[in-house]
């Protein structure tokens, strides 16, 4: 029987600072065991438990696209109270950590084929959404999907992630990238404004469109309200939830929303599903 609690060994091959505050880093991992690399087949929106023996484990969304076979990427924010994130940020290229995954349900990329995609990402929650954008825009996949609209929101320019990636994305066919920051700043040529009002302005037609939202709770709420106003289908508004996790495989009882576990049945839930799940628990 495979032991789902035992991590695989991975090595840090690259570390990139993602923001001015330097508390957001993107880590590239390579598998130590080539069999693990082969077996690690994931889809956009799935996550993995990153593990440091002696410290602990925590879940992180996979930031790289499944089309990228050589490395797995995660963008991780350091929280002062976070045991694992602090230790991870103290590591260097060449250090080894553990990885358990892929876990979770991921975005239903097969179901979304033939549809348009609207991505709305706030702050560093953009991480798995960037995986979706890379996947959709890959030459092998582009023709399977319609128009791609991506709205990336951040507090300030220094906090905007993946700016180089977004410059690349803009060049693709039938693709629109909108970046917005909360308040005006010097040298900022893109939009200014909170995610929800900007979304109202730039949202594409809801017809045949899936909306993928991820970000801080207030952003998710205000943007979802905008999408509902614009008549988006409630089972086509997809959220990726986060909760504190321990096992990541639906056994430790910690991360449930209603009767579903965010780790095993999620983290991706449609708005329609969430309404049903939170019926009895008011969350």
């Amino acid at each position, binding site marked *: *029987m*495979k*032991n*789902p*609690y*035992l*991590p695989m*060994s991975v090595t840090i091959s690259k570390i990139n600072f993602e923001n001015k505050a330097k508390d957001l880093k993107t880590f590239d991992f390579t598998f130590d065991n080539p069999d693990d690399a082969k077996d690690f087949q994931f889809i956009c929106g799935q996550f993995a438990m990153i593990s440091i*023996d*002696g*410290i*602990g*484990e*925590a879940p992180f969304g996979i930031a790289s696209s499944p089309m990228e076979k050589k490395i797995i990427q995660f963008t991780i924010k350091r*929280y002062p*109270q*976070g*045991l694992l*994130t602090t230790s991870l940020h103290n590591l260097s290229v060449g250090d080894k950590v*553990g990885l358990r995954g892929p876990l979770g349900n991921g975005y239903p990329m097969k179901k979304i084929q033939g549809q348009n995609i609207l991505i709305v990402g706030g702050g560093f929650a953009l991480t798995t959404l960037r995986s979706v954008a890379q996947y959709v825009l890959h030459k092998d996949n582009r023709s399977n999907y319609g128009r791609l609209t991506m709205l990336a929101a951040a507090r300030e320019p220094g906090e905007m992630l993946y700016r180089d990636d977004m410059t690349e994305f803009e060049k693709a066919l039938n693709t629109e990238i909108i970046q917005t920051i909360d308040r005006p700043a010097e040298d900022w040529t893109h939009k200014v404004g909170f995610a929800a009002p900007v979304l109202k302005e730039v949202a594409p037609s809801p017809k045949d469109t899936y909306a993928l939202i991820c970000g801080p709770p207030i952003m998710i709420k205000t943007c979802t309200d905008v999408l509902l106003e614009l008549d988006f289908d409630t089972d086509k508004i997809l959220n990726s939830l*986060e*909760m*504190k996790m*321990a*096992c990541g*495989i*639906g*056994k*430790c*009882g*910690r*991360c*449930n929303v*209603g*009767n579903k576990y965010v780790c*095993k049945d999620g983290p991706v839930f449609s708005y329609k599903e969430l309404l049903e799940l*939170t*019926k*009895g*628990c*008011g*969350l």
Partner: protein
Amino acid sequence: MKKLKMINKKDITKLLDELAKNYRLLAPVEKDGIVNFTEVQNGQDITLDFYNSKEPLKKLFFPQSETLYCYSKEQGRTVPEEQDKRRKIVFGLRPCDAKAAVLLDNVFDGADFKDPYYLEKRENTIICSLACNEPQTSCFCTSLGLGPGDKDGSDIFIVDIGDKYLFEAVTQKGQKLLDEMTGTYEPEDKDIKKAQTLITESENKIKKQIETACLSEKLDELADSPIWDELAEKCIGCGICTYLCPTCHCFAIVDEASDCKGCRVRNWDSCMFGNFTLEASGHNPRPTGKERMRQRIMHKFNYFVKNFDANACVGCGRCFRNCPVHNDLIKVIEKINNAKSEPKK
């Protein structure tokens, strides 16, 4: 190969002594006034004159602290192995606890992920349950589809009929063990009838009831009900109800290490603890006792029902008997069934 066997009470110690030679025998042992399932070498150390063990059997398959793996620079990660690989027999378990293990199987023997630590122990254990001739005043198993004579989850089912025990093989595993037992003989019809009568009498002694017919649906309408504030107000937020509940299964995973070596361990945790869902950012989706109490009741009587078509409760009454403020689940359910619908706004 006979399904039913009898043994005289005076021969039971000898039987247990023999079983203890080839198996690891766990039976009820009294220590300082508290009965718990303990490994014994001698049949005489046990007591079968008890209502129920203080701690539930889940401890056997899902220990309170369990090493998932050890790590060191030299050896990398190693999963610890059981030193004594003999099969285990649990003797004298009550039907509610046996059923609880069946309920927990839904979690640990999931379709998508299997828990090797739990399953290996489960597979390696033979459960010999003892019918309850004398339920406790706090028992309400009959409301949950079980009873003092329920055989679900047992490999061998035992009934105390006075000066003898009647053994019945319920599964193949149980039959195999029953065939090995010495000092047994075949029962007569009157023995079998007596066992049935005792069980029926015992069922009739159970006075407490909960109504579960529409409970799950009702709970979906109580998201914003003030009933949760009321229930949570006297709760002190300790872990007794969850730790002593045979069907609760929450756990935390921690690392215990020093000097480049250590272990990753899982420990029982409780959804009633304040920091259970506390995130590193400081945000807590269940910030007060009210949300936690609601989560616990919803999990047992709504979420588990939706996921596995069963209530996560066997009516053993341990939560009530041991709660420092005597929170009574029976009264809680009654309040819920009678509460005014107040769905999420």
